[in-house]
């Protein structure tokens, strides 16, 4: 029956209009992925207002295609310019840039795109198989289970995100606090508005995403005084075909990367650790570990496979549970609500054409995507030749337009500027931004789940432990929360040196 559903999905996804939408999305997404200061999350956020008038399925196809494009685009800047567009492309620069410097940029790019595609495809197949099952289980979830999952979502940022766990907690709390500002829908009381009318509407997370990731990122990149010194692309059909002949050699790396990516990716904050983990494993099992970091093709294959597998896997909890695994998925979730859909497990029974259209479009989008980026590398790389004195104000203007369009309100544009400054300072001080955004999105849902759970138990927290599913999830969540405390102790016990944390955020 799953197969029939997928066919139904392809009926939806493979219409001329939806394919056109996918092509536009990938094109824009790749451009966004290449540009500094514009990543997947705020690219999707800026374009969200343009989808208000579209049918929901086409709208989600546009946004997901944009996401795939941004994921592919990140590899271009990592390899040719040594600039990781996203934190999970950092590992790609280790071997990708040396390869490009040695004149093998074409080979590195082909390997990166192909690996991304393989990783994505692996996760999509798993999503196709497991999403309906997970949704079915989730249908039986009550408020305690949902709250436990939220707890797990945020504790995995603390436990797996790398960086300073205390600062991750602050980001989460700040997100929830910002989310609580305004009207409390349950009691009808105003919270933390202090009589200011503008605060009554609260803070929109889309504006927060545009400010934190868009403006904050552009401030960081001008601070670093970015000058783009690109290596030559050296991309042509011959190089692509030759690289494809070599790639099967790395079959094990592909499989390992895909599994790591999927496993890490459906938990929040997983893409970045997944890419580093996959790289480390590839190096450990390689017969030539000394070549890593100097231009080993396998060092491109490993992180790209895992990062893309993780990026796709982040969609799984969003579709089935209504809980996003990454800021980009969070923005898409916001889109679902705006388009009038109720995210969560019911979507599978109530809007099968939407869900399966989305899943099918993941196949078509990634196939189109890999072909388009393979063909379009020179074009995309040329974007970075635009002088930065034009790019910088242009990106600021685009962000302002996006922030205004959300509610047609100027106060949002001011919030965007403030969030931009906050994003800049937080990024410099190692406060992760992704958990803040996710907490802002999930604030109301989490609070309601907590409220309802506590009403069920008349105020006792034991409700999270007396039900089997929620008990299991809560224990895992608590384990993740305590992990930063346990890890140093565990390492000392085994006589290992203290860990040097991987860069936070995903």
């Amino acid at each position: 029956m799953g197969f029939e559903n997928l066919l139904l999905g392809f009926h939806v996804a493979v219409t001329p209009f939806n394919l056109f939408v996918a092509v536009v999305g990938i094109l824009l997404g790749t451009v966004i992925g290449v540009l500094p200061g514009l990543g997947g999350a705020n690219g999707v956020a800026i374009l969200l207002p343009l989808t208000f008038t579209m049918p929901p399925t086409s709208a989600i196809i546009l946004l997901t295609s944009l996401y795939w494009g941004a994921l592919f685009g990140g590899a271009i800047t990592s390899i040719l310019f040594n600039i990781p567009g996203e934190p999970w492309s950092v590992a790609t620069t280790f071997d990708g840039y040396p390869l490009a410097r040695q004149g093998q940029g074409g080979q590195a790019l082909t390997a990166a795109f192909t690996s991304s595609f393989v990783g994505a495809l692996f996760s999509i197949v798993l999503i196709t198989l497991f999403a309906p099952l997970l949704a079915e289980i989730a249908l039986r979830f009550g408020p305690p289970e949902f709250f436990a999952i939220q707890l797990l979502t945020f504790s995995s940022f603390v436990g797996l995100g790398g960086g300073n766990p205390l600062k991750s907690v602050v980001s989460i709390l700040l997100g929830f606090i910002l989310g609580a500002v305004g009207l409390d829908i349950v009691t009808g009381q105003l919270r933390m508005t202090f009589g200011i009318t503008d605060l009554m509407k609260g803070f929109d997370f889309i504006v927060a995403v545009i400010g934190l990731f868009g403006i904050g990122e552009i401030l960081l990149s001008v601070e670093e005084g970015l000058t783009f010194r690109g290596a030559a692309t050296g991309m042509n059909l011959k190089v692509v075909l030759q690289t494809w002949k070599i790639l099967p050699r790395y079959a094990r790396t592909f499989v390992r990367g895909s599994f790591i990516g999927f496993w890490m990716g459906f938990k929040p904050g997983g893409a970045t650790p997944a890419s580093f983990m996959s790289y480390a494993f590839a190096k450990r099992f390689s017969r030539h570990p000394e070549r890593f970091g100097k231009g080993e093709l396998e060092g491109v294959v490993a992180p790209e496979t895992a990062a893309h597998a993780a990026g796709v896997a982040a969609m799984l909890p969003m579709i089935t549970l209504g809980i996003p695994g990454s800021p980009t998925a969070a923005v898409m979730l916001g889109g679902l609500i705006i388009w009038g859909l109720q995210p969560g497990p019911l979507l599978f029974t109530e809007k099968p054409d939407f869900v399966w259209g989305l899943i099918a479009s993941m196949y078509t989008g990634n196939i189109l995507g890999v072909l388009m980026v393979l063909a379009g590398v020179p074009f995309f790389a040329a974007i970075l030749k635009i002088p930065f004195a034009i790019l910088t104000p242009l990106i600021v203007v685009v962000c302002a337009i996006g922030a205004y369009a959300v509610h047609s309100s100027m106060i949002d544009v001011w919030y965007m500027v403030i969030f931009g400054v906050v994003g800049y300072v937080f990024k410099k001080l190692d406060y992760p931004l992704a958990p803040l955004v996710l907490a802002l999105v999930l604030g109301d849902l989490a609070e309601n789940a907590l409220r309802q759970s506590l009403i069920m138990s008349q105020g006792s927290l034991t409700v999270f432990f007396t039900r089997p599913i929620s008990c299991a999830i809560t224990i895992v969540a608590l384990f993740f929360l305590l992990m930063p405390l346990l890890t140093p102790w565990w390492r000392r016990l085994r006589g290992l040196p203290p860990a040097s944390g991987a860069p936070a955020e995903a």
Partner: protein
Amino acid sequence: MTRTADLVTAAVLLLVGLIVVGDSLRLGSGWGSDGPKSGFFPFWLGVLLLAVTAAIVVQAWRRGPGKTFVTREQLHPVLQVLWPAAAMVAATHVVGLYVAAAMYLAFYMRWVGHHRWLTVILVALAIPVVTFVVFEQWFLVPMPKGPLEAWLGY
């Protein structure tokens, strides 16, 4: 110094925590007739924020001053983006987004990029016009408009 920046940020966060706890106590942070009151969830968020931020203060204090948070040379280009951007947002209230964007683009390109006037004028005009066509005409998403657009009949 990074420590100073860390401590200043923590001070702001502590202030936020106090405001949140204060407002939650006003709303009632306990159990009402039909479940937790409005202030229940924010109250505990605020308390946790105070506790964790206090731990960060201790951590930052112990770690030593650290490297310079931002040098004058680094801050300069950041402010060059930030102040004109804020000015653009302010100007949008008066002249509308398209004119403000054109002014911002032209100013930044000339002031920071030292581009030729011809390039400056062409780019600063082309980008708002393209945006206008895409947003107002194709996708029917209205942007704030000012006297110029009114004069042109939009």
